[in-house]
């Protein structure tokens, strides 16, 4: 039949604003990018390529794991510096209401924030019409037990162990993030117009006798202010420095721990602990990492063997199959 069209068939309503519709498209550029022919590396994850990786992972991870595990287990021996921690359990330092209840500007020494703390600090923002310094729930609930360690000598006269209270907080926190309010006067003057947190015994400028460890830059305070990730946590309390290479830091013997008990934990079903630990290059004792490395290394090695077997079997059967395809 005739594919004959009436002329009217070809009148078309295009969008009224597109008069340039007939312009011929220019010839596209012959560039590798536009033609999707950029040179490329085309890796494929086949058993062949992955097998060695599995073995390599196995071979690398297992020794690492063993190394970590051994290091971690050696930590018990009290050599080198000894670190004294206190630990709280069932204490939700990571509760949202708690985490945000602080004013970093105030802690950074901002004068206006000192006298007018952030609203986030409610209900620990003001007390009797005076701004609280440091404000907020975190500061208010600062751990205030005092731990003292004594070595019980032969003469049963206890020798106090020197507990160093410096460099227990991050250097940057102590020197940059936390700052006392500016001024030349005494710390008490600088905190004038503020009041102590409700639960505190002393105001913030009486945390320590050392002016370099007082006020907001008190390291115990800074340590407390770094909120823990989990409800069971430990915090660094003191350092026991090794005096000489000849003697162990804490020689074997009977020790006496004197706790000035201020901090209530029973109400929330909490526990307090004191931990003495040495530290290796990888921190405190933690078997997890070592075990995990060994486990993953072994699994990977095992998988490598399994894949090898499968690959071998498959190869035999598929070589014939490949021909039929």
């Amino acid at each position, binding site marked *: 039949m005739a594919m004959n069209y009436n002329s009217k068939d070809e009148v078309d309503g295009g969008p009224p604003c597109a008069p340039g519709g007939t312009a011929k498209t220019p010839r596209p550029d012959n560039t590798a990018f536009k033609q999707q022919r950029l040179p490329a590396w085309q890796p494929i994850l086949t058993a062949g390529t992955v097998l060695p990786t599995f073995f390599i992972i196995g071979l690398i991870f297992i020794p690492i794991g063993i190394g970590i595990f051994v290091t971690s287990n050696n930590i018990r021996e009290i050599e080198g510096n000894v*670190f004294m921690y206190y630990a709280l359990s069932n204490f939700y330092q990571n509760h949202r209401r708690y985490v945000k209840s602080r004013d970093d500007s105030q802690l950074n020494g901002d004068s206006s924030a000192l006298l007018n703390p952030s609203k986030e600090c409610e209900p620990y923002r003001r007390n009797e019409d005076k701004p609280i310094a440091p404000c907020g729930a975190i500061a208010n609930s600062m751990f205030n037990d005092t731990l003292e360690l004594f070595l019980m000598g032969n003469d049963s006269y206890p020798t106090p162990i020197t507990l160093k209270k410096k460099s227990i907080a991050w250097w940057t926190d102590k020197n940059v993030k936390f700052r006392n309010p500016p001024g030349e006067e005494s710390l008490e003057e600088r905190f004038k117009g503020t009041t102590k947190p409700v639960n505190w015994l002393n105001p913030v400028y009486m945390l320590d006798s050392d002016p370099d460890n007082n006020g907001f830059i008190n390291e115990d305070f800074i340590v407390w202010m770094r909120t823990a990730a989990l409800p069971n946590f430990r915090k660094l309390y003191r350092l026991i420095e090794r005096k000489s290479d000849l003697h162990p830091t804490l020689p074997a013997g009977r020790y006496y721990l004197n706790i000035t008990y201020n901090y209530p934990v029973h109400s929330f079903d909490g526990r307090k602990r004191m931990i003495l630990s040495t530290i290796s290059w990888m921190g405190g004792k933690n078997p997890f990492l070592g075990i995990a490395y060994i486990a993953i290394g072994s699994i990977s090695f095992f998988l490598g063997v399994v894949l090898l077997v499968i690959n071998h079997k498959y190869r035999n059967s598929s070589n014939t199959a490949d021909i039929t395809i």
Partner: protein
Amino acid sequence: MSCILRQLLTLSSFPQCAGEENWVDSRTIYVGHREPPPGTEAYIPQRYPDNRIVSSKYTFWNFIPKNLFEQFRRIANFYFLIIFLVQLIIDTPTSPVTSGLPLFFVITVTAIKQGYEDWLRHKADNAMNQCPVHFIQHGKLVRKQSRKLRVGDIVMVKENETFPCDLIFLSSSRGDGTCHVTTASLDGESSHKTHHAVQDTKGFHTEEEIEGLHATVECEQPQPDLYKFVGRINVYNDLNDPVVRPLGSENLLLRGATLKNTEKIFGVAIYTGMETKMALNYQSKSQKRSAVEKSMNVFLIVYLCILISKALINTVLKYVWQSEPFRDEPWYNQKTESERQRNLFLRAFTDFLAFMVLFNYIIPVSMYVTVEMQKFLGSYFITWDEDMFDEDTGEGPLVNTSDLNEELGQVEYVFTDKTGTLTENNMEFKECCIEGHVYVPHVVCNGQVVPDSSGIDMIDSSPGVSSREREELFFRALCLCHTVQVKDDDNMDGPRMSPDSGKSCVYISSSPDEVALVEGVQRGLAVTRIQYCADQGGFRNCPHFFFRFELLEILSFDSVRRRMSVIVKSATGEIYLFCKGADSSIFPRVIEGKVDQIRSRVERNAVEGLRTLCVAYKRLIPEEYEGICKLLQATKVALQDREKKLAEAYEQIEKDLILLGATAVEDRLQEKAADTIEALQKAGIKVWVLTGDKMETAAATCYACKLFRRNTQLLELTTKKIEEQSLHDVLFELSKTVLRCSGSLTRDNFSGLSADMQDYGLIIDGAALSLIMKPREDGSSSNYRELFLEICRNCSAVLCCRMAPLQKAQIVKLIKLSKEHPITLAIGDGANDVSMILEAHVGHPPWASVIGKEGRQAARNSDYAIPKFKHLKKMLLVHGHFYYIRISELVQYFFYKNVCFIFPQFLYQFFCGFSQQTLYDTAYLTLYNISFTSLPILLYSLMEQHVSIDTLKRDPSLYRDIAKNALLRWRVFIYWTFLGLFDALVFFFGAYFMFENTTVTNNGQIFGNWTFGMLVFTVMVFTVTLKLALDTHYWTWINHFVIWGSLLFYIVFSLLWGGIIWPFLNYQRMYYVFIQMLSSGPAWLAVVLLVTVSLLPDVLKKVLCRQLWPTATERVQAKNQCLSVEQSTIFMLSQTSSSLSF
């Protein structure tokens, strides 16, 4: 009143006013605003809009509110807005910035894009509205801006100007009152169409004369159908009796068309501005949703459910946990007074909302942006593709909708037109058969002439004297019965030049068949000029015979009648009717002639794939002609149902014909059409050919293009068969044949092409189809349809011949709505395909179009346009495949990475007393999706090539691997989600065991909750990025740059973010957290360990699946790499074995 209402409605940019006729059914226009003489009917004056075109959506004032409204109508944007508002109102764990910033970003970018597009539209509108127009005022020519044009103004348009509004053609500078028009600026159609001036006004050639015209035009109210116009003009002469003339679409000059070959014309404006047919037809393309987008939305709903259930679980647990007062409010963490006072339910609800906000990132706002960017940018690869650029025509592919890119990889049915799509639409006159004698021209081909062509040879016995006359009549008929125009000047852009006879002349017609015929006749019979003057007063000149014919009437072609006729008067005063058309429409109307001989010849030619036409004539006695004249005149004046009446009149006139003969025209296949169809079939796509051609012609073409192969068993569902048996029996028999096979041999998708399988091809014709589609009296129509669909489903190829345009649409609709909802693609090149294509349009399947000779009308409205049919192969098999795998990975990966992101947050709630404490800092919450993990996946989704382009082209069956949305099935989705969950568990508990009751630094200092979150986050960013790296099969330098770059960016950002006390922040919680973490050896070890553990299962799964159950794609990948991999494996294995023995 009603009129104003209508204007308001049409102006509100929804031009499809369905019931427009109901308001005011006609309008009356005073030509030149001159009142008709008193005593004539009084008309109610109507108000018309001015000639301003408004295509822009916004104005300066309403842009912000309107655009915001439009944007927030999208469900995702609205969701994020709600989250943002919740964050603003209640005390939530994350600051409103975290969701506000991304939302703001998305909204702004979209608004800028839309604003820019609208600004362009404004500019185009202004250019259009301000271009000068000449019109006549008080007998003088006046220039005015186009937008000031009013209905009733008389406009003068010069050559090469476009018409400023819809005009009734009053007169032209050409003596015969015609003008030529091209719609090139509308649809790229460069051929010239002839329009006719109103008979009674065509004498008014000057401004002064026009001024003296006294007339009114009555016409229907504007309606969008471009092909329909009915009206009436009353011309008041000095005698008071007005002359009434009918107006049809041949008198109407549409806005947007350009005047050609005519010095100037005068016309009266009848539709202006937004009421022009062009404006009424302008519709902003509705957004189509692809299958991927639909699955994406389903996944979103799943995630929304997960989100809500997470929030619910946490809320409930929170209150269970808090039932002990020391937990709700321990001494160290007291509530404020107002918090205590709050109502329990309100508190619980607030908590629920807060959890929702905390977890809302699981539905990422950035996914929408990334998907849109991917689609928009990705579509450039189609237009840039050099392989799809056609040198001959200088055309490249067009992408009109980028929303459906990935749908190209999902096509199950291709509906293709035959003429112009499968074939060149480049006609060649092959032979003619007159009275049973066959004549073959030597070498005649339109466009090309071989010099030694001399004439038409007869191949059988020389005709007797009696048939001499018939022969003469036959060629006369061919010379006269057509709509071909002659173009003299040789700088025409028309393609058909015939350089003989000293003077070049070009034939222009909307139908290539006609050109081929006329050229064939010209070549053979040395007809040097065929002058066609298309009005009643015109003459047809046939110089070879030196006869002049007066053209009396044209009964123009339409696709329903499938024939056309002319009535001419010879110099001797005899009146003839010549009719030319499809054999099926001619034979029933023939009463005389060698029907059987011609029919057998026609059928033989059809089997060879030639296009045949039959020619018949009848001699009219003057009385008959008078009757015809009256009949036509009466129908032409009718204002209502004119089309129908006209069709009836034609039916009455074209009967009792005498058959003269038949012609055969060859239409060659497009290059590589067969190759393309074969590839598509191998790819598991069912190809249907829908054509108006005869069954034999179409079947021959189908064999030629390998749609049917030699071993294909053809099933016929044709009128002939149905005449023998009832439709019922035929259908059941066919289905039995088909199902017997598929019953005994379960039809496997993957071995569907194996040689032992019986291939079925179905041929159905239009009449049979309409029987199937026709609802039965008892209302059980669906029965036949189901049966028919069942048969179709089991046929690898289907040919539908003798299709009316509307039936093409019906077929597409039938398949589209069948119960599997297959993705259909319709491809065609001409106006007769538009209805099929529009049908395919509605149900969101994409349809492509071939830019063909029949103009680019289809190209403009299509979703995709390609220059040649062969390009469909690359379009679907390569581009479609790539787009699909890219976007499916994009979608799955986005959900995966957000599960990884949010699930640790969920777990953390169990350790922080369900207090909605966030694990990550605000900055990280905000930037995770925006910058840390956004670019690698975007680049992946633009660049990924899991197999090379050549492989995809070489091996079409790979297309089956992704059929039926394979990469977005539930199984895959659940795998990704569980992978995300597993990874999240690894991140969280890895960090948990690291931090539990120990210190991880070498100076004994303790890390806090932010370091904990930082560790989780770092592991996560590395895992998620490396997971993508593992999935990437195509590493260009860009991929390297983006993947490693974004990891580096994360580190640099973290160093910076934690390295400074940021003065504008009221908290400094991240200060030095990242750097402190890096200073700890175990943290490094943990990152390495956890990333390895997270990636291990995915790698294992990939390797095992590839090894044990490889897909076709994976086999091909392996084969491609076979050599190199094999070598390296052997090398590696020998290495490992040596290390093992050690």
